[in-house]
């Protein structure tokens, strides 16, 4: 922190030790407190320009999805012969709307069942990597042990291993174990086709990113906070569960959302490790069969895509309340 003395005009009230603001980076040159205009109400960006730019981006992003939504309510003949946007020229025409696509999708054998299966795969495959990565990220940040930096580097480096290349070796591991010169290192666990096999695979594939993101966040928590817990006699386990985890809810919630989505929308891992049988198949497999049995059934696929989107959206909305401001506000007082 020696360069604090070499910079001038660091915003008064910004305490470098507790906030991690790098001196110099936070310095508005030429606006030393003396020359700056007297305290403005703050929001000088105006409400309208903000609202307009947000709306423009939002509309651009919405158009493709809107096309999907509209198509899912149109009969097949129309989907193939005219653009989805033509519905807006004659909104009242009841003949161009149908619920048949949704009826077909939901009636297609065992869709409800596949929903349950997806849930049984996705929830543990979301909670497991987050839990394991959080423990690891805590250790990588706040515990001392030999090889800490190297191991963390290795974990991050593993992000680049393409999942597709892992499937076949893992499958062999599941079905016939692992031997070095005839000595079994990992026995034949016969895991293939079990939920555990899928959970562990998703956990393994999701761990590097989870550890990387959580380590970045947990590493940014104020050191004084962790140390004060230690002074108060809290062990690592308590500090982690009572202090670090609650403070990390925003990042835990955002990673949870994405892991949930990736697993929910995964077809490959489920297909390889769980198999495609009727009683174990997940939503994405059910969707694929909709298409498989009827060729390019876009009208069904669009409806199916929306049915399978419902749960991820519920998860997103219910986790959104954890993205709150100022969790660490007032937590550090020197």
């Amino acid at each position, binding site marked *: 922190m020696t360069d604090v003395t070499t910079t001038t005009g660091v915003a008064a009230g910004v305490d470098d030790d507790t906030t991690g603001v790098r001196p110099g980076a936070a310095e508005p040159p030429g606006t030393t407190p003396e020359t700056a205009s007297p305290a403005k109400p703050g929001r000088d960006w105006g409400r309208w320009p903000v609202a307009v730019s947000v709306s423009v981006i939002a509309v651009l*992003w919405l158009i493709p999805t809107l096309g999907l939504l509209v198509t899912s309510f149109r009969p097949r003949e129309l989907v193939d012969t005219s653009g989805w946007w033509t519905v807006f020229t004659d909104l009242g025409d009841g003949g161009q709307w149908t619920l048949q696509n949704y009826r077909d999708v939901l009636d297609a054998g065992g869709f409800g069942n596949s929903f349950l299966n997806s849930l049984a795969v996705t929830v543990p495959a979301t909670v497991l990597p987050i839990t394991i990565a959080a423990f690891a990220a805590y250790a990588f940040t706040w*515990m001392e042990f030999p090889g800490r930096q190297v191991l963390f580097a290795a974990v991050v480096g593993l992000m680049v291993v393409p999942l597709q290349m892992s499937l076949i070796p893992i499958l062999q591991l599941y079905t016939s174990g692992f031997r070095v010169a005839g000595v079994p290192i990992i026995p034949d666990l016969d895991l293939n086709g079990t939920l555990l096999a899928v959970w562990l695979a998703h956990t393994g594939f999701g761990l590097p990113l989870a550890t990387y993101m959580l380590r970045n966040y947990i590493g940014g928590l104020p050191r004084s906070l962790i140390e004060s817990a230690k002074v108060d006699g809290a062990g690592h386990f308590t500090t982690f569960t009572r202090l670090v985890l609650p403070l990390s809810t925003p990042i835990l919630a955002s990673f949870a959302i994405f892991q949930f989505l990736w697993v929910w929308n995964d077809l490959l891992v489920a297909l390889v490790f769980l198999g495609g049988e009727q009683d174990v198949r997940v939503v994405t497999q059910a969707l694929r069969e909709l298409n498989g049995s009827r060729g390019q059934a876009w009208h069904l696929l669009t409806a199916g895509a929306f049915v399978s989107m419902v749960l991820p959206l519920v998860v997103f909305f219910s986790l959104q309340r954890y993205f709150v401001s100022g969790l660490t506000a007032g937590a550090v007082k020197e």
Partner: protein
Amino acid sequence: MNSQLAQVLTALVVGVGGIWLLYWVADRLVNLLPVRAAAAVRPWVFVGPALLLLTVYLVYPAINTIVLSFRDRQGRGWVGFDNYADIFGDANGRLAIRNSVAWVIVVPVLAVAIGLAFAVLADRLGRRTEAAAKSVIFLPMAISFVGASIVWRFIYNFRPEGFGEQTGLLNAVWQGLGNDPVAWLLSEPWNNLYLMVIMIWLYTGFAMVVLSSAIKSLPVEVLEAARVDGASEWQLFWRIVLPMISSTVMVVLTTILIIVWKVFDIVFVMTGGEFGTTIVAERMITEFFTFRNQGRGAAFAVLLFVAVLPFMALNIRRFRAQEEMR
């Protein structure tokens, strides 16, 4: 159905509760050790499970892949560096590398820039408006890949003049402006850009959500202090918010870069790598699974992870710096 439900619920309890029980029991056991031994062992209780899973699920397959990349198409005899020589000697292989480089520059930068701008702007709206606006950007992430490829067909679809009405939005607009319809996905080299747009559309939501949570975790006292000192909102962003979330920006950039580097589905489904749109990840899948050339497919995979190593090294240096600053 009921037994299925019971089974699922049991699975959830076992899967979710089991892992916590495991850590708790392990931690209790470590407590029984003498103090010094406990301090030495405890970190391994925390990182152990992660390291074990990573070894089995990623390290072992990665080594497997590297070995395979020096073997022939059946994955048996050794061929030395032949697979790599083939990749660099083949015009299509070089094109795949060039295109992939373009992807990892364009997509992460644009996704992060738009996501960050949106997170910052939406932060200024009312609570409910913000939630609604953010969910619109997030929406594409919830669409399964099958869904996303259909969505974009309704945008890029092309019918030659005289072969019926356009069902692709872009051509409808283009024709409405008085132009002839264009086969967007066939027109090199711009078709690469059109495919990248799909990825940007998908992943801006990722950048937005993570960056937004970083912005929300900034200490409010700092921002208020700067405002009291007369910093404009523009200065506030460039001089305080951005420097303070720079590590998260870096994390998001790296993450999207790696995801983009590995993504093959968009190209695979939309153009099958034809018309000059081939990329490294798509070559890997095509060689390995379509052409059944295991050695060459593995060599493309190795190319993928070797190329990202310098970027990883950069990240590690940044983490070291973060530690020294604390």
